[in-house]
């Protein structure tokens, strides 16, 4: 039925179909477009972080004081060291990934297998480090008091200028306060776990230790947190103190604005989820390589497409690193 086939006169020309002006396969191009949209999602989160930070620019926590821990190293403040290590691990796993892609172009199955294996190990080290970073942040280190207005008051030794942990000065008071459980109450409500010390114990400790002063969240002209005088310190805690805060969660944050913790959990969590799913996809591809799927297909483009995703995860981390830990 040749009469139903319209001839457009463009056969063999640019618009005649069958040409690939971008010289990229469908799958690769779609991976790129997915990456663009995912990049916009991450930008939305980071820009929202910037919004909140600009809104509270005068009292935002100083990241160097928050992330100071390195596993197996105790009693030392080492800002940035561990997160720099994590960054390096992720860049390194990006390198092994691109080496796997390169080996795939040369159809070297053994090399692809090994490089993919190393990439997976790198990803796992990163996710593990991220989990450790979360755990440390949730646990907290010094403890603080939150005021009725939601401000965070931290404690400093007036003589040495060093931060004081609650356990350094709080005086334990014998009391009968028991955690309220859902099974006991008439409204089936329960309360969260208790902090190590309560507000009265902190106030009692402040009264007996004359060297304890309060540090507020307000940043001075030098970009340092404001220290209060001894009298003002006592007054702040006695009159405005509401509860003791240890560590950080979505509601309270001993390091300052709860928004800082919220964004930290959300953005690094979303990124960590990307790394985790990247590892899972890498494992699937890894087994496909071992089984010889791509050998039979006569090209390793699937490794390249997954590689694009993996590099993107690294790319996002570069920005998270800058805006959460450096700037």
């Amino acid at each position, binding site marked *: 039925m040749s009469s139903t086939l319209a001839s457009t006169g463009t056969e063999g020309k640019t618009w005649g179909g069958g040409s690939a002006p971008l010289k990229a396969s469908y799958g690769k191009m779609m991976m790129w477009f997915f990456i663009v949209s995912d990049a*916009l999602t991450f930008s939305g989160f980071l820009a929202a972080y*910037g919004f909140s930070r600009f809104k509270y620019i005068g009292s935002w926590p100083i990241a160097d004081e928050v992330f100071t821990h390195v596993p197996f190293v105790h009693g030392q403040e080492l800002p*940035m060291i561990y997160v*720099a290590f994590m960054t390096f691990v992720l860049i390194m796993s990006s390198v092994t990934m691109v*080496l796997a892609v390169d080996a795939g172009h040369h159809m070297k199955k053994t090399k692809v297998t090994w490089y993919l294996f190393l990439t997976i190990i790198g990803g796992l080290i990163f996710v593990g480090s991220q989990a450790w970073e979360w755990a440390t942040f949730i646990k907290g280190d010094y403890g603080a008091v939150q005021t009725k207005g939601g401000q965070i008051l931290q404690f400093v030794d007036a003589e040495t200028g060093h931060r004081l942990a609650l356990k350094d000065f709080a005086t334990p008071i014998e009391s009968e306060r028991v955690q309220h459980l859902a099974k006991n109450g008439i409204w089936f409500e329960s309360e969260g776990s208790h902090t190590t010390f309560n507000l009265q114990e902190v106030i009692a400790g402040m009264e007996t230790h004359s060297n304890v002063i309060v540090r507020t969240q307000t940043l001075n002209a030098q970009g340092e947190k404001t220290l209060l005088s001894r009298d003002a310190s006592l007054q702040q805690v006695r009159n405005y103190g509401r509860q003791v805060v240890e560590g950080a969660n979505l509601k309270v944050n001993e390091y300052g604005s709860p928004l800082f913790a919220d964004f930290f959990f959300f953005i690094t969590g979303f990124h960590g989820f990307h790394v985790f799913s990247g590892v899972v996809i890498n494992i699937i591809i890894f087994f496909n390589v071992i089984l010889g799927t791509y050998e039979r297909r006569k090209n390793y483009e699937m490794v390249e497409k997954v590689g694009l995703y993996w590099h993107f995860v*690294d790319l996002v981390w570069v920005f998270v690193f800058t805006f959460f*830990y450096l700037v």
Partner: protein
Amino acid sequence: MGAHEHKLAIFRGLIKFKSNTQKIWGVLVFLTIVTAVEVVLGIYKPAVLMTALLSPFDGGFGATTANVFLSPFIFLKPLNLIFILLTLVKAYYITWDFMHMRDETQALRRMVVWTAVFLVAYLIFILLQEGGYIESIYSSGYIKRGF
């Protein structure tokens, strides 16, 4: 598969590598150096880099325009400006050499990069502007303009 020829020069042809593998290691060395510089600057925070280079201009339309165009030097500490620039440099080499954007066609490159850059720039502008506005209302006793 003959379609895998890579462009092996980086820094606008300043360094040319012999193979793709060699280029990958070269880029790794460069990215590691950049990260190390960031970490060292972040730990020591040199005092010279902690205050903005210029102070905001006062006056009419011309001053406001200058404040907008020179905003990176007026409202940002040089240290933070360096961090942001180094981040963009790292992002460029990850995209161009690890993700092989250098070897893609110009059209694909522009589709991906321009779309993202334009939308992200807009998003950052609008949100940071708003955040700064709210802060100025908080810090000036809930009055933005006393007529």
